[in-house]
């Protein structure tokens, strides 16, 4: 479809970072398609043209052995950046228009963050940015350079101890197919950080930005209530 055409080519994005500092929080406050529109509007306002499909990406320096044009700083934006991911500092070559989901999955090997829609509709890509659940598919990597990123891979303890939410997900048979599970867990972890003793209804609302096509909602709710000690 021609409407999925992407014309991104190393465009400088003045003001992007501050604009999307707000954008990063969009995931927490309005995690519906509106946030996707906000995201795109933010990009357009800053001078870039971004596909509405958002699925098309380029410059996968980390996973492609012979990509053309790699390495050169596009449009003057520093591409080699440091990210704080799961407590580690990770150096990564990120294009200005690259989403955090793509950086995590294709450059840092953190494939636990899933892409279900790549347009802020499903929540499978939910990660925590400074503790706030955020859709990684709709967050530009460059906007989170100064923030703490936590993914599903960062929840286990050093000796493989599971986070209480993860353990409760096992005990309650939370997942079915499992594809949305990392996102569900990240949203749950964020909720329990800010509200360790939620009501079932509060959990429902906190997780409402995470779709589950299997319909495992009841089991996920049971899991979070168990993790909170409210089972």
């Amino acid at each position, binding site marked *: 479809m021609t409407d999925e055409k992407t014309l991104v080519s190393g465009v400088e994005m003045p003001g992007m970072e501050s604009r999307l500092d707000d954008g990063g929080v969009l995931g927490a406050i309005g995690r519906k398609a509106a946030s996707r529109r906000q995201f795109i509007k933010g990009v357009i306002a800053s001078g870039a043209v971004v596909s509405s499909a958002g699925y098309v990406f*380029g*410059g996968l320096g980390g996973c*492609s052995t012979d990509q053309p044009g790699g390495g050169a700083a596009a449009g003057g934006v520093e591409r080699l950046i440091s990210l704080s991911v799961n407590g580690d500092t990770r150096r990564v070559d990120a294009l200005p228009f690259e989403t955090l989901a793509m950086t995590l*999955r294709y450059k840092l090997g953190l494939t*636990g963050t899933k892409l279900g829609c790549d347009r802020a509709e499903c929540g499978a890509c939910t990660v925590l940015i400074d503790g706030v659940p955020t859709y990684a598919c709709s967050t530009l990597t460059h906007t989170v350079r100064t923030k703490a990123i936590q993914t599903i891979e960062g929840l286990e303890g050093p000796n493989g101890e*599971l986070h209480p939410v993860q353990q409760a997900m096992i005990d309650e048979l939370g997942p079915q197919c499992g594809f949305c599970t990392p996102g569900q867990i990240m949203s749950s972890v964020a909720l329990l950080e800010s509200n360790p003793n939620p009501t079932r209804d509060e959990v429902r609302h906190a997780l*409402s930005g995470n779709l589950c*096509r*299997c319909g495992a*909602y009841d089991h996920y709710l049971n899991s979070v209530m168990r993790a909170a000690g409210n089972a």
Partner: protein
Amino acid sequence: MAYQLIGKNFTPPDIRAKVTGRAKYAEDVRAEGMVFARLLTSPIPHGRVNNIDVSDALATEGVIGILTADDEGADGLLTNEPKYVGDLILAVAAVDETTAQDAIDKIVLDIEPLDFIVDPLDSLYPGGPNAWADGNNVGGGRTGLEARRIKWTAQDFAAVEEDQLPFGESAWEWSFGDIEAGLTDASFVIDESFVSQGNSHHSMEPRTTMAYWENGKCVVHSGCQSLTATLPSLARQCGVELENLVYINEYCGGGFGSKGTVTHGGIAARLSRKINRPVMLRISRHEEFYIGSARGTLQGRVRMGFRADGRITAIDFQVIQDGGANGGFQDSGDAAAALSIIYQPLSMRYRGIPVRTNTTPRGPQRGPGQNQIAAAVEPFIDQAARELGLDRFQIRIINAPNNDGTVGGNQVPVTSAYMPEALERGAELFDWETKSQQSGTRKGSKVYGVGIGQAYHDVGRKGYDGLVVLTPDGKLHLHSGVGNLGTYSYAGTTRAAAELLKFGWENCIVHQGTNLQFLPNASSQTGSNTCWTMVRTNVVAAWDAIAKLKEIAAMDLGGAPEDYDIGGERVYAKSNPEQGLTYAEAAQRAIDLGGKFSGENPPEDIHQITKLAVEGIAGTGLVGVAKDNLPMEGDVPALACGFASVEVDVETGEVELLDYVGIADCGTVIHPQGLSQQMKGATVWGIGMAMFERQIYDPQNGLPGNMGFEQCKPPTYLDVPSTMSWDAVDLPDPQNPVGTRGIGEPPMGAAAAAIVCAISDALDGHVFKRTPIVPDMIVNHIAGREPSNGVLQIHTA
């Protein structure tokens, strides 16, 4: 019967990976030198590709190659006659996706528009357009029918009263009993037309594939509901012999019928072969809408006769099924079978026709046909109950199938059925007696209503193989050829083998996820059949292993095999339990003995897939392997009923589901937590069918109107009740060794029907005769306005 494992919860071996992010789905796999493919899809609903100029695209730096329908083996995966918007024309491989997409934009496509239709009725008109250029408008796909052209006569259309479904020549037909007498003698007759709109499967994981070739073998990573069942068709797609296909599918991110087999994996495999590079073909959410399959729309009409006591004397059912661009599945016949079993009518006639349209391909979706018809017809049962002054619960009881029930035109007996028990249990848990008294009560703008729904699916197959191996380390290796759809039945069914061998679960290892694990020929993980079908294969494999254990013991310790028994992971003499062999010792003896004991000489009647698996593990232990030749007589039903209460806001048209109770009749419960997941997950699907999900098509241009999750919203946390209750009848099926039957599908139809009936109940019994019921339909009805949709109109908002 007291079981150690059957009926008990367990921690499925794959669940830890799911909660830690370690579970690898197809898009999580990387390979050295991997490139990315993008698809060029059709911008028009039907056309003929006359020429494709790819010269500029191929000249683009970073582009590696292009696959079109003209490439060897690619016709069928890609097409030069796209038949819906989004149909696949070609794939471009490049070093990254941006480069691939830029190259696609440079391709000059000369495509000639052809006639198209989005409503089957248009194709059935005399001289109406056809969805395919070959002029065939009926059959093909997975209908089981030869493609052919059927047009109805002007008289067929003129003969019916307004707002009723016309009907002419059918493609499927059966009947039993005297319909006309049943209708004539009835105290009350329903005669209604209805619509059930189609919807996309929209599994969370798009059907991405990564494929490469290595040493003459084709390696394919792609999520699929099934495992060994998809191997033959996947091998054909890729153009390899079965033994040269390596298929890896440890995790499948949802399927719901749309991933019964790998559907598009061959594109990545063929492209990879052509360019000699690993190819990752990521599928976007939009593309998943196009190629990810959808439920068939039904336009139907039922005439039903009722005796004064509510007993159904006759059903005359005719239905048009939107087969989409591929011809579709068998929804209409399945719907008819469902009517025949749920209501046990004294007479019935079914006529159905699947018609191709230029909309997305249609395939089986959770309870195909059975669930649509439940939501369509259950409100008419309520209508009859009201007319005859009967309780809506009692009218269902009087018609409900029990062990004397039959299914379909041949009135095939059921293996077992306990719908009356299920209804009784549901009424008790829900407190139907009290809640039904509150029907129509109003609080502010909200009106209360309650409803009951029932549904069915056939869930039994036979003839597949089981494979278990006892190894000298004392472990039991359970080889499961079932896919990992998320039901955990790939593991749950193997527990039957462990149970019979009296193994501790901690000493069992389940092998699944790839044919590299030597997996036996299994049924596709579709049609809720895994429990009934694959418990049987595990049982026959276990029986084979037990027989071999006893034979070895008799050989080594004297006496006859029947002098021995098993227990405590030993085979021992009945007369002297001290005398025996541990399973570990017996496994070593099996290796020493060779031949049939260790898999060198497997039975003749097992499938080629199982033979390859047995070859792989031969010599590693005591091998239990057998084909399921157990008797199977009759239809194996999964039955479910549901009870719903709703509040309908008469000002906004919004419906809130307050309370839901679902009951399963699925034989012996083998995995309570897994059953709970299926009951509740299917209920969520039922909520979607009743209130949200449908595909929208623009009839003028054939363009889809709602491709993503937002516009075609599956239910979210906030659309379902905070808690849902369920229970199971838990009475064994006599034709399954542990008594189980599957259940994944009918709880959806039961929920959809219960909700539709509850909405109707809140609105003085008004029946909308279409699903989903969306707020504007309710508001229009309350305001006394005409509905915005015509009675038979489909693909509407």
